């Protein structure tokens, strides 16, 4: 590998995050703070996961088990974050740029999701990215023509986007609890999070040929569904306003 690979993988993994941050979030100090807060929640989740991993010696090499409890922990902290933000919503509204804007709630969810996505992308991929500067590579076991660095970059990028959509759907779901719609949306977040995480196991599989491609396809499908849900939710809330505004 070389600088080519380093920059290639870096842009691939962090391209969406970088552009969202510099073109949107960084313009608003409050959003940056919110992002940091959310990032901190994800970090605590992953810290607890590592404690469990460290303590559960026999299960250390069982990735399926590790995924199980770390996803559950992330979802718990997502819920905790929601609770916190919900309680602080009034205050947040006051300090926001447009205190009276009805879209703030969605913006907060988006930025919180970004915080989750950013931290997970940094934590999971940065040590791998560092290796790309050195000459040696490790090929992806299921796709021997591509390097693991490259495949991981794609997955990192997609997962960071997943986190944004999940947060937006989850906040919507938590607000709607205990209705059926709320349960369904919450379930989707959990199921798709598991789906994405377990699909990653295909990358390391030597028995499934082109496993990394399936993993990416699964990611894309889930992402597409999530985005659709987000758009539907947004339309539901703001559709009337948009229509009324356009009619005016």
């Amino acid at each position, binding site marked *: 590998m070389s600088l080519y*690979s380093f920059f290639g993988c870096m842009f691939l993994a962090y391209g969406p995050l970088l552009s969202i941050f510099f073109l949107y979030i960084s313009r608003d100090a409050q959003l940056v703070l919110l992002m940091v807060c959310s990032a901190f929640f994800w970090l605590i989740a992953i810290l607890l996961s590592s404690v469990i991993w460290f303590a559960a010696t026999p299960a250390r090499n069982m990735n399926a088990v590790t995924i199980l409890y770390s996803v559950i922990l992330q979802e718990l902290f997502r819920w905790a974050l929601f609770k916190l933000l919900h309680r602080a919503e009034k205050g947040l509204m006051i300090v926001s740029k447009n205190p009276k804007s009805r879209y703030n709630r969605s913006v907060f969810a988006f930025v919180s999701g970004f915080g989750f996505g950013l931290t997970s992308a940094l934590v999971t991929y940065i040590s791998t990215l560092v290796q790309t500067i050195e000459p040696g590579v*490790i090929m992806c076991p299921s796709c021997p023509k591509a390097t693991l660095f490259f495949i991981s970059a794609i997955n990192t990028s997609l997962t960071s986007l997943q986190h944004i959509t999940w947060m937006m759907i989850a906040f919507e779901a938590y607000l709607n609890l205990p209705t059926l719609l709320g349960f369904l949306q919450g379930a989707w977040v959990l199921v798709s999070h598991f789906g994405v995480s377990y699909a990653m196991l295909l990358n390391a599989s030597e028995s499934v040929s082109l496993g990394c491609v399936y993993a990416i396809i699964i990611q894309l499908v889930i992402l597409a569904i999530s985005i659709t849900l987000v758009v539907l939710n947004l339309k539901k809330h703001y559709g009337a306003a948009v229509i009324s505004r356009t009619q005016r």
Partner: protein
Amino acid sequence: MVHLPFLHLHHRLYCSPPLDHLVAEDIATSLHPYIYTDLGTWPCVRLLNATGSIGCQFALTMKFWLHCIATTGTNGILYQLNTQDDIDNFSQNMPTNFNLPPTRSNLQTLESSKRLSGVIAIVNSTSTPGSPSRPSSYSPESKCPNCEFGLYANDADQYTWNPNGNSMIYEPVNIPIFALDPIDTLSAATYKQVMAHIHESLSIYLQDLNYNIEQNYRNYPLRAVDFSLFMWAAVDSATCLRRGWCFPVGGSSIYSSPSPDLTGNDGKPIIIVSATMDSRSVFHDLTLGVENDISGMVAMLAVADALSKSPTPVASFPKHIVYTLFNGEAWGYSGSQRFVNDISSPFECKNITGTNTCPIKGAACTQPCVRDTDFTNINFDNIESVVEFSSVAQSNASAKGFWAHTDDTTTSGSLLQLFISQGNSTNSIQDAASDGVHRKLPPSSAQSFLKKKRSIASIVLSDFQTSLDGYYHSDYDDMLDLATASSAICSLASSAARSIWLSAQGLNNGTVPAQVTADCNLVTSLLDCLTQNYSCSLIQQYYGVNNAARITHYSSVFSFGGVSLLSLFAFNFLGDKNGVRRMNGTSPASCQSITDCQAHEYCIRGTCVSTLTRYHDSYGAGLGYNYGTGLFNVIDESAPTWTESTWNPPTMRVYSVTSTRHQVIELVIGVLWLVSSIIIVLYLKRYLKKTLKIA
């Protein structure tokens, strides 16, 4: 597969631990061990003298690639070179294999192609099945080794003792060369990791290499290697010593005498019985030197043992016997020249005033910095004769028997006749000049004595008559036929012990007591211990040693008070044979360590021994120690001034690489993804602003 030689790694653990037991923590913390396979190896090092440097010269860059491929320029792809045609092909177009001893022309061809960036030399062990055969003779030494520092340096027609020599050892090489040789557990693990038997065929391929062959060197990812070895020293000895980036090549010589009361003015003549302790080869860590010079050293130790069994103590003889084992001899007779200089010039101790730059604790004198001053008791003018054992293992001598070389038949004539008369029928001792050609002395420490005083009678015993061993100072001098070698050495040692026994009493003939005979079992043990098993029971008698199997016989670098494993053994063995045990009543005074004994006694084999056995410093005669600065410097450019560069721990690792094209594609995809992200974000912002009046 490459046979090459060039390097050095002290017996320290520079190698990464084998990656057998990767634990989950490693996986979690770093991918590194999965990408790179670190290999323990023996690198090429730079040596310097008064006029320049030899050995492998690396540019200041830390990384080197093995066998660069022209299409990529930077990727060090592994190639195999087996034949001469392969070398030509490699330098012209598509490379393959290299299975030839490294000669100057081979390396030059490869180097000039600009496609070679390093060589892994498989110094195949003879015990490895399927290893390529070795050339029948290969000596990287010069045609007349160390002759410029010897007795005949100014002679017009010096005899060519080493006609096979190709002087590779003196070549500055601009590429890194590393050796792979499975001589111990660690290196065998490395070897195994890199190499694999292909079916049951005789060929061994580098496993990674074989993969590249299958991939036709074109289908990436390919396996590559890089080296990291930084040589600190540059230019020449004077420069690097001043900068503190090199150390003198040398070590500790040993001298020992059974006469405890030896003094300079007791008027007794002295017989020096000598051998060389160190050897030399391209890869210093692999240096063994079974012929040169372990065999001579073993013979000398066997003689010391035989004479110690004399019914009449040798100490009571009218002549003194002094055993000398010189270190650093391969480097311009460093040990013997320094010893001769020290005992032939008046010793004047001027203890340092001011900052003490003598690193020896409890030094007898701080300027000159010496451990003891007992060498002053050896009066150079009293030295009557020098008996030296050169290579005597008879590893490839067709005719049995030994040859006695002399400088001058008149001064050494009677000594020669004495030795010839004591030879036995199967391993006779003959006059090397018996064919009518007087070749004078072969490369030997005796030359250092004669250089100072030509009238000393001298005799150099060897298994060759006309030319040195075919593997002289080569990494291939590592084969030992234990039975043949020990019977030959034992027989010679017996003859020599009898001759010296007679000579020490001024006799030319007579009956020598049967006790004065070399112990063949001892010879066998010595050979075994010094070649392949330093942890053997013989050495365990003297001190505990663990996990030392084959040790290097390169003298390494000199440090005040420093003692190598070889010197340590020689000291204890000679001290034991020539020492006197102090009796506590009827039983010997026992001890656990030297602190249990009285002053000037040593604790050898659990008893307190007083003996005239001492270490003596050995480093090039052209080097001196500056007591003001605490640095060595070059004081005489015409004398040996060898120094070894300091170097960082070497690394060699194997890993996969992708093609540059592949990497550029990755970059393009990454950039496209970033750009599209930016565009989408900008578009969404605009859209939302327009429709929702937010963001």
